[in-house]
């Protein structure tokens, strides 16, 4: 057997042995056996003296090639082995991933706040800014200036909490606002002669028995636009945007004639019932429709009381409510849950 053959034999044997080295120790032993200072391949270099001058370079080249190959194979095997060992170690350190995480308790915004924010956002995109007015209101602002004189049947629409006044002045009687509409008068008187686009939110109060459907305190939000060319179709279009953005696209809407003392013409906007999809159910009184908002063109008397000449200006107003839209959206059947502040309810939102 030539030295060359011997070298190739060692090479093949080393490669084969490497494959069976399945632990770090075996791998180290292999290295010592073949590539160590006294390893089989290393020892082969000493055989170079037995070769002729012509053969020597060729042998030297070959032995280097084999060394490099074996070093590379060793490195690869060593890396694979380490990875496998790490993997085994990790596998022995498992947890039950179904156990609950360390509790983190973020807070929750009140559902009313969330609903108001959505409404502000929707109308904000259409140029409406938020304007706030007081809870305790002058009777004139809550009623008379809005075209609702004393004893007028229109007043029946609101049961009122009156403030106990030590020295009651006939024109300065105070009440808890029954709606956010007095804000219309306040913003008009403040802003004239600017055009107006505002959203008026706030707590309102009614002297009504408290039931699942009615609370003595609730939120309202209404919109008011006053300008030179504002129309009923603008009102309907604006409310359509609201329905699309608040309830999602694809809802059917209808517009009915209605009555409010401070608008003329007055309308009511309905949307197909969320609960029954329009087929008719108890909630929608078997009509398939749910009221979304009362609205209308600002009554000439109200414009005039606000300082705007009704021959020159027009405007619209609408009130989509706050709790009711949320109740419809989430299927809440009892309005008392809003201000009863049971956190088991609040934390759902």
């Amino acid at each position, binding site marked *: 057997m030539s030295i060359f053959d011997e070298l190739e034999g060692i090479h093949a044997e080393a490669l084969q042995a490497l494959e069976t080295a399945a632990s770090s120790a075996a791998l180290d032993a292999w290295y010592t056996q073949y590539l160590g200072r006294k390893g089989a391949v290393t020892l082969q270099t000493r055989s170079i003296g037995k070769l002729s001058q012509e053969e020597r370079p060729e042998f030297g080249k070959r032995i280097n090639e084999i060394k490099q190959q074996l070093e590379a194979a060793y490195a690869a095997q060593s890396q694979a082995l380490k990875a496998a060992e790490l993997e085994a170690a990790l596998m022995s350190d498992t947890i039950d991933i179904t156990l609950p995480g360390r509790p983190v308790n973020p*807070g929750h915004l*009140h559902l009313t*706040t969330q609903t108001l924010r959505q409404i502000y956002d929707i109308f904000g995109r259409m140029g409406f800014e938020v304007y706030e007015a007081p809870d305790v209101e002058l009777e004139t602002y809550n009623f008379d200036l809005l075209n609702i004189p004393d004893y007028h049947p229109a007043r029946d629409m609101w049961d009122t*909490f009156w*403030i106990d006044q030590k020295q009651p002045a006939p024109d300065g009687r105070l009440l808890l606002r029954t709606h956010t509409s007095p804000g219309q008068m306040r913003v008009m008187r403040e802003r004239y002669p600017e055009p107006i686009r505002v959203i008026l939110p706030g707590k309102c109060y009614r002297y009504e028995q408290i039931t699942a459907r009615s609370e003595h305190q609730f939120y309202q939000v209404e919109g008011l636009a006053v300008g030179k060319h504002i129309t009923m179709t*603008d009102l309907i279009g604006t409310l359509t945007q609201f329905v699309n953005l608040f309830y999602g696209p694809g809802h059917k809407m209808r517009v009915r004639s209605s009555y409010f003392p401070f608008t003329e*013409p007055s309308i009511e906007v309905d949307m197909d019932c969320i609960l029954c999809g329009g087929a008719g159910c108890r909630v929608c009184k078997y009509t398939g429709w749910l009221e979304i908002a009362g609205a209308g063109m600002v009554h000439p008397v109200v414009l005039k009381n606000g300082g705007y000449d009704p021959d020159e200006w*027009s405007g619209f107003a609408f009130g989509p409510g706050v709790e009711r839209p949320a109740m419809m959206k989430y299927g809440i059947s009892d309005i008392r849950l809003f201000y009863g502040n049971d*956190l088991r309810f609040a934390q759902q939102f």
Partner: protein
Amino acid sequence: MKIPLSWIQDYVNVKDVPVQELRKRLDLAGLEVDSITAIGYPEAELPWDPEKIITAEVIAVRPHPDADRLVLADVNYGGAAPEIVVTGAPSLYEYRGSSDLHLKVAFAWEGAELYDGHVQGWTKRRLKKTEIRGIASRAMVGSEKELGLAEEQTDIIYLPGDTPVGVPLVEILGDYILDFDIKGPFGHLQSVFGIAREIAALLNRPLSPQPLHAAARLGLAATGEPGFVSLEIQDPDLCPRYTAMMIRDLAIGVSPLWMQLRLRRAGMRSINNIVDITNYVMLELGQPLHAFDYADLRALPGEETPAIIVRRAREGEQMQTLDGEVRTCDEEMLLITDGGGPVAIGGVMGGLDSEVAPETRNVLLEAASFNFINIRRTSQTLKLFTESAGRFGKRVDSELALAAAARAAELMAALAGGTVDVVAGDLYPGKPEPVILTYSPDRADRILGVVIPRDEQKRILAALDFRSEATNAGSGWQIAVPSYRLDVTRPVDLVEEVARVWGYDHFPHTLIDEPVPPLRRNLQLEGEDRIRDILIRLGLDEVITYSLIDPADEDRLNPNPGQALDLPGEPVALRNYLSLERSLLRRTLLPGALRTAWSNLRFQESIAIFEIGHIYYRVGNPKPEQAETGIAEPRRLLMLLSGPRQDRWQEPTDRRPVDYFDLKGIVEALLRNLGLETASQWTRVSHPAYHPGRSGAVEIAGRALGVIGEIHPLVREVFDLPAQPVVVLDWDLDLLLALAQEAGRQKKAQNISIYAPVHEDLALVVAEATPALAVQRAIIEAGYPLVIQALLFDIYRGPQAGEGKKSLAFALTYQSPSKSLDERDIEKLRQRIVKQLARKLNAVLRSA
């Protein structure tokens, strides 16, 4: 307002219109139908099978061969031979032995479903063939109860004599009752005829004016001096018209079935034929009527003819009304009086003394017109809410009075055998001027944003009885408003009429085509929302509690009566309230928060909440000219924590109850977010509601924000809270936001140093009373700008610190913006700090 569709059918044909379709049209036109109740029709509670429940005729009644109480009725139901029915109906029993009868009845075959007439409430049963004492019976004659028309079991139903035989009963007595919810002061919609008029206009169909023309049918003449009564109106401002008619020789009795059914379906009870007729005409036309027993009306002294004088009451004048109550009037109330005194509170309720009674023979029928505001005032003042007052309060057309009186008189003649005096009394001092409005179709377009064809507008107005006058000058149309449309006073009211009948569903959708008005920020709301967002990130839930609280809650916050509870301004209470617990406007958010804590801690072990809301107190008198209410409504921020610091978990967690420092940590994070952390001053104060040793006041820039601390154990007990610390912050939100805004304006970015920081611990011994915050701030100040952090990590009290002293250990971080600090720099810095603290706070460096 309940209206039977069968009644509407008297004036406008709606037979071919499906009732749901009709409802839709009415809803869209603003006549909202709240509900529809079917009677007899398939959607009814008890549908009447048209095959099995039909009209029939009892032609003979024979004795039962084997039972004394029962009879055999031969019933012609339209078949070849009469059907024999065994019955115990008392009124048929009376006919025993008679033949050649024509009694029209409701007839039910076996298999028909009916209510059981012999049990309370509504129990359905299916009619079965029976054999009663040897005689088979396959059918029955029905009562109102069995058909679901009356609650109580009564006699069998007798239908009008002209009822055809063998037709489904539902065609004769079936009905739909429309319950309208009409908002607003619309007198013209308070009647069957008024609704029929709307329907006729909406469907573009003819309307029968028959009920309005009774005066002509009677050949009635009207005069101020009718002879049978002497009339006077002393206060025409409150009574613009008073009419009276005389009906003689009446027989008081029971109303016919059709009238009883109509009244009942409209929600009224049947009393007797005279009262029923006044109610019937009120429902039909909307005009309240009152019938006086003529025999009870007195003449003025020295006169023969009874008198009716309409005048304001004298202060304190009393009368006994129909309901038996004695009413005391004031000077603004209107009375109907006779020669002897009050006989009615005008338009509200009649007097007991002149009530129609079974023995009444002659009736004076009143149909008047009253000032609607005054009626409402009287009704509200006396708390006397009658059908009459309700209708007058929504305005009744004064032109209607005599027509309605004539209509009722005509019915009294027909149904109670009376004779009508053909001269009526009629005083009409307040006859209104006709209302003519100038309607501009262009203006309508401008308001509506849609061009409705001119001829369509004309057609709609005409259909609603708005007559266009011949003089159509310029672009405006002169429109005459019918007398009953008291709600139409401005051209814009006509725009609404056109729009609603044309239909809003035809309107295009547009958006405002104008420049956006000048934009403004709402800093108040932005500020609130910023705080909300920070606090929910810190784990607090937002609550919104009631503005109205129990007045006693203010006292409950003050367990030591000697101490004054410092609430701002004068309290604001309600004059009328639902309950005392909701009768005072809050001057503090604290009771609401404590009650929220109480209600939630029953269900969960911990709570972390905040509220942003207004408080209310009186600061002065209202100034309406300046739009000022005299009530301050500042905003407050309240936070409350209670319960274990951490939830349970599979490994041990920190289950100690939250305390002052948990809340303070949140507050510090909030202040940091608002750029206010370094400015706050914390001082211990005592506030009656708080633990005296664990509460403090916080100031920024010399301005008091409010309190933070643990709730006083006695207050906690009064509010029934569990025995664990409840920590609360109660601050002036307006001030906090103003300070945050100021800080925001001055905020400048800080450069970040690239040089390595050096860390060092420093322990300083100070007097026990020296606040840690003062030491920490002094270190930062002394080392400025190189000490970038001084974190207190240990407090030691003991022999090594000395009596009355404590040692505070701080972890300091030194860092320069411009260089690496070396040992010499640090040494210098340390000495500076120690020297300054010794001078300022008598602090001594604790030897290591």
